């Protein structure tokens, strides 16, 4: 507890060193932290920052809902039925390794630039981890619960809704957390590689218009966003599933 301050030393030293090194230096590639900070204030004031953030987070969220939702349903199905899992595993193993960014040109042909392109790629990227992790979450449900369902003579539907999903929920939430992280990374990547919107594009634009201070402001903001969303979901997970015990 008393050692918490140590974590702040390294970033503070790095930032001060950068400030000192960049002092009075004219660069088109790097910027002083103070310059980035004032650029950040400007970008926030004129709304550029918020629009880009909205575009990136909106696409990420839509992608998680679409891809993660489909992955959840398929994962439950595969987890509950051995036959379905056997039949589908080869297809999943063949499709899953396709790198998400390789789908960019296909989505570009189908949708053109814009929201739909980005959402489609994010959904593709989120589908697989959600599917695989949900399937294994169901597989790891205490077998005794299936016996309980039989003894209680629950219908298949209500045993899934009342026993299986609640039992697998902590692990499914972990998968969801992972998907959100993937979605953010893929969103920024798609914006950098192709799609002219969002935080990724604004970083590329800042670099190409030789405004490194804007670039570093956006970069720090992106990092902060990613970290706080991750940390927020983690603490939510701890709060929600504290009574389950055991799971990290």
């Amino acid at each position, binding site marked *: 507890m008393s050692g918490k301050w140590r974590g702040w030393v390294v970033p503070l030293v790095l930032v001060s060193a950068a400030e000192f090194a960049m002092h009075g230096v004219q660069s*088109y590639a790097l910027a002083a932290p103070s310059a980035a900070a004032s650029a950040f204030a400007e970008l926030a004031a004129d709304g550029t920052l918020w629009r880009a953030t909205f575009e990136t987070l909106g696409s990420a969220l839509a992608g998680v809902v679409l891809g993660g939702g489909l992955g959840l349903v398929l994962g439950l199905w595969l987890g509950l039925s051995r036959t379905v899992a056997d*039949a589908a595993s*080869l297809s999943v193993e063949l499709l899953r390794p396709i790198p998400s960014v390789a789908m960019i*040109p296909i989505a570009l042909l189908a949708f053109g630039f814009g929201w739909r392109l980005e959402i489609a790629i994010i959904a593709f990227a989120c589908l697989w981890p959600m599917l695989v992790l949900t399937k294994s979450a169901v597989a790891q449900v205490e077998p005794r619960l299936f016996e309980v369902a039989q003894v209680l003579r629950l219908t298949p539907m209500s045993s899934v809704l009342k026993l299986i999903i609640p039992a697998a929920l902590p692990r499914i939430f972990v998968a969801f957390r992972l998907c959100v992280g993937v979605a953010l*990374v893929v969103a920024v*990547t798609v914006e950098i590689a192709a799609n002219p919107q969002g935080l990724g594009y604004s970083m590329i634009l800042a*670099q190409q218009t030789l405004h490194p201070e804007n670039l570093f402001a956006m970069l720090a903001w992106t990092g902060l966003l990613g970290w706080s969303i*991750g940390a927020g979901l983690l603490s939510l997970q701890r709060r929600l599933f504290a009574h389950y015990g055991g799971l990290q």
Partner: protein
Amino acid sequence: MRWIKGIAVVAALLCLWQAMAASGFVSRVFLPSPIAASQALLNGLTHGNLGLLTLNTIEHMTYGWLLACLIGIGLGSLIGISSTLRAWLMPTLEVLRPLPASSMVPVFIGLFGFTPNMVLAVIAFGSLWPVLLATIHGFASIEPRLNEVGRMLRLSRAAFIWKIGLPNALPDALAGMRLALTVALILAIVGEMLTSQQGLGRAILFAARSFRSADLFAGVMLLGLIGLCCNALLAAVERRALSWQNHR
């Protein structure tokens, strides 16, 4: 039996794809028939330069990944072995972890321009994190009893790292390396899309721009194949290197 079912489902999916392409329900501009795509694949490999492009992409990916593994395991061992260094550095590393690797692309473009070195730096930087963090974790999780065994046998620090630390971190480090290879492939593709570097990433983007959907799909299939093979290869290495775990 499992395999027959799996193959049957893959065949059914291919038939569905063929039917969709043939019926004109989905425009042929962005959905070629599977037959056309596989013809383009065969043609590209035998008469065209698809094989060479594949090798190019694999080369970019591998160089960046190897660099990341070397730095990640070396640095991870040094940080992981010392609880003091961990206390000073881990908070910073944890905050940087969710930063999308691709968001460093504009920074590296600013520093190196649109050069092969820029792409190498991006790939190495992006795939460094999984290896570095996993190695640190592997070192941090050394059984305290083994620390005592090391001290009782009066092992030197170097001997302790080599004989106890590294083998203990190996399962984590290998898992990190596997993840890093996936990241490296994605960043290699992004790098090729952004710069004039030869490779499949650039080829599929060009195919999309000139509406050659069959060539585009052939390229995507090859990228999926690279992902599949890399994963299988590393999984095999893991099984071999960690054979002692099977007996636990």
